[in-house]
């Protein structure tokens, strides 16, 4: 048998054009967000600290201040933003250019997997059940990319992204955006939360994200600790707010003003 030519010897055009397809996906996101002044990821690294609650109320306060605001619910497996923004279900209007976001309380635009899934159903993908851990992460990253690039956001002052616990979605976001987003961190006062949030903030800082500040949630309710102050000192960032169980509107408006 004669020597077999290598892949590089075959000079025909790459019919699949996978690099071009990936490049087109990235351009679509960049073009869609061209009218967005800033993207802020609301994250924690710790579950149960109230990221979604803070995101929704901050978005509403920013909108009341006259800014064009949208929220992308990046917690694909536990989406709660539509309920927090009081968005009733209605079909998302779709046209050739993209999907229209919903509009919630105080005029905040939003998109969430909760709007697309059957009531109460988990996010499940078609595909082989065995070894699904191999591909599920890539599916979720693609879903995040589509929510960023296919929703008709229009001109926005701020797009807030409500991230789930952990760092995976933040890393995906950095890759999709091509640059690290600014980060707003939420914690509760406890040392356990501080330790988890510290890891997230360190990862974000190492990626190059601007750390906008810390919001301490659920203060004054028996949670012992000084997480916000400790992290603020360590990362040289401000504590933007301490949110009690029943915050008044002016608290959110002070946070909005600080951003």
């Amino acid at each position: 048998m004669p020597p077999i030519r290598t892949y590089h010897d075959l000079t025909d055009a790459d019919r699949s054009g996978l690099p071009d397809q990936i490049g087109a996906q990235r351009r679509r996101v960049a073009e869609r967000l061209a009218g967005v002044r800033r993207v802020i990821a609301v994250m924690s690294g710790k579950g149960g600290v109230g990221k979604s609650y803070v995101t929704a109320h901050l978005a509403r306060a920013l909108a009341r201040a006259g800014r064009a605001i949208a929220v992308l619910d990046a917690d694909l497996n536990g989406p709660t933003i539509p309920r927090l923004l009081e968005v009733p279900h209605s079909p998302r209007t779709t046209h050739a250019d993209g999907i229209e976001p919903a509009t919630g309380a105080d005029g905040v635009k939003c998109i969430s997997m909760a709007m697309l899934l059957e009531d109460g159903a988990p996010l499940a993908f078609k595909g082989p059940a065995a070894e699904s851990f191999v591909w599920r992460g890539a599916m979720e990253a693609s879903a995040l990319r589509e929510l960023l690039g296919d929703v008709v956001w229009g001109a926005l002052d701020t797009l807030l992204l409500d991230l789930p616990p952990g760092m995976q979605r933040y890393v995906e976001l950095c890759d999709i955006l091509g640059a690290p987003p600014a980060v707003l961190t939420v914690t509760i006062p406890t040392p356990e939360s501080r330790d988890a949030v510290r890891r997230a903030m360190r990862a974000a800082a190492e990626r190059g994200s601007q750390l906008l500040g810390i919001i301490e949630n659920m203060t004054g309710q028996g949670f012992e600790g000084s997480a916000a102050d400790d992290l603020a000192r360590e990362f040289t960032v401000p504590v933007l707010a301490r949110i009690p169980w029943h915050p008044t509107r002016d608290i959110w408006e002070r946070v909005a003003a600080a951003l």
Partner: protein
Amino acid sequence: MKFLCVDCDKQMAFEERQLPGDGTLAATFKCPKCGRVVAMLTNPMETQLVSSLGVEIGGRTVPTQPLEMVRKMVATGREDAFEETGGRVDGPAGGLAWSREANERLSRVPGFVRGMVKKIYADYAKERGIAQITPAVMDAARVELGLEGM
């Protein structure tokens, strides 16, 4: 990935792609010199990994649709998640009609993805000057555009 006909020392050309529906993908390649045809059969995991990237092996035959990967791959999507409007070519104004049989067939497509599939068929017909979409037109589009999975 390329296929080389060793006897002819020619790169085999892509011929056809099929998605049998069991999570696998079949693609046939033909030697332009001797005509030999081989089939590449993927395992479900490989096919799934490609799908998860939102890319089309063999190249794109139709423009990217909004939330395409989500609508094609999410198994728990609600029937009324989307409402297709704008830029449509169906209906009297667009001069495109759907036969009763074509509409029946379309109604069997899950609601989560139906609007996207309908638009692809409508665009296919419009580009070819087809006035009425029938099951035969849908079959032709499925083969030509590689829509076996839709």
